[in-house]
Structure formats: C-alpha cells, structure tokens
C-alpha cells in the first residue's frame, strides 16, 4: 500500500489534471460556476481525508463528482430558509443530475467552461485568472504568485469575476454560431496572454515557466474540444515552437541570448516535432491565420540546422502574408530583420524606411534596435551607435539595456580596432 504522502501527491496530481473537466461537469448540473468550484473543493478536502486511509477508489473522478454533488445539495439545503426561486431551481437540478460510474460517461463540457471564463464582459486579467483557476486547476495562490499579486487580491478578483458571471447573466453555454468566431478569437487571446506572461522576465523564471506549460496544456484541451479549428491548432503550434527554444534563450546568468547565438542542441526536439506536425496540418487545410503564420515562421527556424542555413526567403514571404492580416510594427520590424538575411542589410533598411517607419515608429524601441543592427552590419558604425542609444533610451527592462549596451560596445570596439 502506498504511503499517505504518496497518496496525497497522487491525489493532488489527479485533481489538478481533472479539475477543469470536473468543474465543467458540476457547473453543467446547476449552471453555477461558483457553487461548482466550492463543492468540488469540499469533495477534495473529503478525498484527502478518506483516500489516504482507504486507498484510491476505482473511479476517483466519479467519487469526486458524487461527493461534490452531495456537498452542493447540502449547501443549497442549508441556505433553504432563504432559498430564492433560482436556488430552488438549482437544488432541483443538482438532485436530478445524472449519476456516473465514470467521468468519461458524462459529456465533456470544458468548452462551455472555457467560453464562460473568457467571456468578453469580464476584464482581461480576470479572464486570464479565471481560466487558469477553473479550467487549468491552478490554485489561487499559484495564480497570484505568477502575476506577482497578493493572494487576497487574486482571491477577491476571482470572487468578483464569478459573481459577475452569475449576476450579469453570463450563461454556461456555447456561444451562438454567429458569435463563435469572435469568441474563439477571444479565447485564443487569453491563452496567448497566459503563455507570454510565462515568457516575460527572468528573475522569477521557475514559476513563470509554469504559466507557459499551462498555456500549452490549455491549448491542448482547446484543440481537443475544437479539433477542426485551424487557428486553435496554429496557436498551440506557435506556443510549442516558441517554448521549445526557452532553455536556449537565456544564458546561465539569465541574460537574453538572440536566436543567432543560441545553442540549437538545447532546443526541445519533442516540442518542435509536435509543433511542426501541427503547422503542416494547418497549412494543408486552408488559408492560415495569424497564429499559424507565426508558427510556420517558428517551424522554419526550428528546422534550420544553423542560423546561416535558415530559409530566410520563405520567412520573408510568411511575414508578408502576416502583414496583410496584422499590419503592426512588430511584423514590420521582424520582416526587416528576415529581409536583411534573405538579401542584405542595406536592402532591408531601404525597404523599412520606404514604409515610412522612420516617422511612425520613432517611439518604438525594437525599430531603433533593428536599424542599429542593420547599420552595424553595413559598417556604418557611428550611425549604428546613435540608433543603439535611441533604443536604450526607450527601454526600461534592465536585461534589454544590458543586451543593447553590449551590442553597442561591440560595434564601437570593432570600429576602433579597424581604424
């Protein structure tokens, strides 16, 4: 028989893995996300008490659902003296909810849960927090830590969001077909926000790393629920291919390492393979969306054995397609970088300036950093150093300043040794 602490770890893992599905099933019974989470939490407490003594039941998830259901009925009955019409209806629903021998025999309602948590009537940060809590099964403490918030602040945010869902009339259901495209875009945005949150910063890397993994896990859940949605697959591919390079992106001191200097042996081949497979499926199925295009660019980087043999011409072509969908400074600057390797830095700079970037992007740090690099590679050192200075003046992140300073110094010292 496993030791109590082993059982506890097993229970914690199981609950984390099944949390979203369980919350979704329970919310489906009464339509009330708050109550579903509360009674599932009650059931988890009971499980942690009973299972270490009796061992895990044959169908732990069915046990949790049955227990949570009893707890919900208890909670509603206790409130009976002041039970309003809505609660009386809820009680009836809970009492008549289907019994399940196994969770798998109940319909998977995680998609409804995801849409509820990502409803546009909730503010963005609450959508992110709620999705991590209800779908991902992260604890309030874990979410607070990831966003460097106090636990009480995060708990209050989650409570407020759930209260709004109930009182504002956000129903636990799939959006109408005509609303679906916008609402799915909203969900993808939430997942990408979670993913990028995990990639920002370096000091607290360990816990932020969890958020990237979590976003990928949520992406897998979403693609399982929406197997035909190309952009959902595109986003999952993009996250996998970006995350595959995570270890190589930071030096031992946490400093940022640019793509050309990354040790490609440290890239995660498993994630790359999965990402590329998804990209191929998506590109073969119709016109690619913005996430899929970015994933395709990531796939070309991942497939290149080294920086020099990257297929830059195709990357430029993909950026051109992306520009048609998202004409923004990020795409413009990244395209100029790709162009500088596909042709040469001088051509890339002329093309970048021809877009009027010099006027529009004066306040955009990556523009100046890009110009600096293109100038330096043409041997125009003095101009490059001026551009680096502009970029540094627009940067607040210490690690970026360190990186840009190092680049600028390298240009200056190369200039000196040449003369």
């Amino acid at each position, binding site marked *: 028989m496993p030791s109590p602490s082993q059982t506890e770890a097993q229970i914690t893992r199981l609950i984390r893995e099944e949390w979203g599905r369980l919350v979704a099933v329970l919310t489906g019974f009464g339509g009330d996300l708050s109550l579903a989470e509360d009674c599932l939490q009650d059931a988890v407490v009971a499980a942690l008490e009973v299972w270490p003594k009796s061992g895990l039941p044959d169908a732990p998830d069915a046990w949790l659902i049955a227990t949570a259901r009893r707890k919900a009925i208890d909670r509603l009955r206790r409130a009976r003296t002041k039970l*309003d019409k809505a609660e009386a209806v809820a009680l009836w629903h809970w009492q008549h909810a289907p019994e399940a021998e196994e969770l798998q025999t109940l319909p998977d309602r995680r998609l409804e849960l995801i849409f509820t948590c990502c409803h546009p009537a909730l503010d963005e940060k609450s959508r992110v927090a709620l999705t991590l809590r209800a779908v991902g099964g992260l604890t309030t403490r874990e979410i607070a830590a990831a966003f460097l918030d106090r636990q009480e602040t995060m708990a209050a945010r989650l409570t407020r969001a759930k209260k709004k869902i109930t009182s504002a*009339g956000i*129903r636990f259901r799939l959006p*109408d077909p005509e*609303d679906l495209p916008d609402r799915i875009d909203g969900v993808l945005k939430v997942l990408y926000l979670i993913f990028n949150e995990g990639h920002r910063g370096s000091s607290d890397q360990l816990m932020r790393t969890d958020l990237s993994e979590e976003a990928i896990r949520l992406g897998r859940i979403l693609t399982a629920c929406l197997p035909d949605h190309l952009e959902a697959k595109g986003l999952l591919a993009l996250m996998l291919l970006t995350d595959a390079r995570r270890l190589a992106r930071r030096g031992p001191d946490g400093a940022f390492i640019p793509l050309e200097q990354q040790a490609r042996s440290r890239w995660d081949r498993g994630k790359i393979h999965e990402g590329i497979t998804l990209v191929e499926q998506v590109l073969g199925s119709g016109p690619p969306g913005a996430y899929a295009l970015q994933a395709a660019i990531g796939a070309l980087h991942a497939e290149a054995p080294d920086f020099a043999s990257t297929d830059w011409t195709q990357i430029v072509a993909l950026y051109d397609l992306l520009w048609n969908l998202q004409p923004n400074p990020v795409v413009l600057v990244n395209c100029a970088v790709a162009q500088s390797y596909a042709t040469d830095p001088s051509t890339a700079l002329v093309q970048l300036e021809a877009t009027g970037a010099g006027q529009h992007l004066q306040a955009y740090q990556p523009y100046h950093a890009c110009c600096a690099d293109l100038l330096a590679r043409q041997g125009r050192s003095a101009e490059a150093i001026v551009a680096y200075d502009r970029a540094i003046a627009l940067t607040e992140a210490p690690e970026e300043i360190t990186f840009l300073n190092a680049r600028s110094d390298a240009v200056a010292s190369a200039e000196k040794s040449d003369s």
Partner: protein
Amino acid sequence: MQFMLLIYSQEGSGPQPGTDEFGPFIGAYMGFTQKMKDEGKLISGEGLQPVATATTLCVRDGKTHTVDGPFAETKEQLGGYYILELADLDEALKCAAEIPTANYGRIEIRPIAVYD
C-alpha cells in the same frame, strides 16, 4: 431575466433633425422597438428630453437640495433606455448592438435586480 439597456451619447452626435440621415435613424429606432415587441422582449423603452431639462435632487439632514443639470457632467449623457426580457447577457449584447445609437454613443447593459 430582464436587462436595462441605457443609451448614452454626446448630445449633437449622430444624425440631427433636419438632415437627410435623421429620417432613417428614427426609422431604425422604430424598427428596433417593433422587433423587440414582436419577439415578446420589450418591457418598456423611452427616449429622454435633452440634458438641459435635467434637475438633480438630494436630501441631506431632512433638507432638499435641488441642482440644475444632470447627476454627472460627462460628455456622454443618458438619452434613453430599453427594458427587455432576454435569456442572457449574450442576447442582451446582441440587442444592444442593434440600437442605432450604438454606432455613435455607447450602450450600458445592466441586469435588473430581482427581489424574491
């Protein structure tokens, strides 16, 4: 459940009486109201007189204070409302998007409280 859709806009924005756009604008309002009625959703709905007609009152220590003007001096003012019987917020959002002023001003959606 019932929702109140509060219609806010800057006075003078949107089609004005005497212009070519005004007729179709009012027509769109009548069309929306009729549609809500036909679908059994309309509880009530009215437009309000301009904000120049507003008077705001409060009672403090038994004394009534009356002030000329609206509660809040904001650019966008309450100009009218609908109360609709709808399934959920998603439906309310769809109805709100059909209110002609949504193209010029803003619609605030508030569920009506139920006391039972």
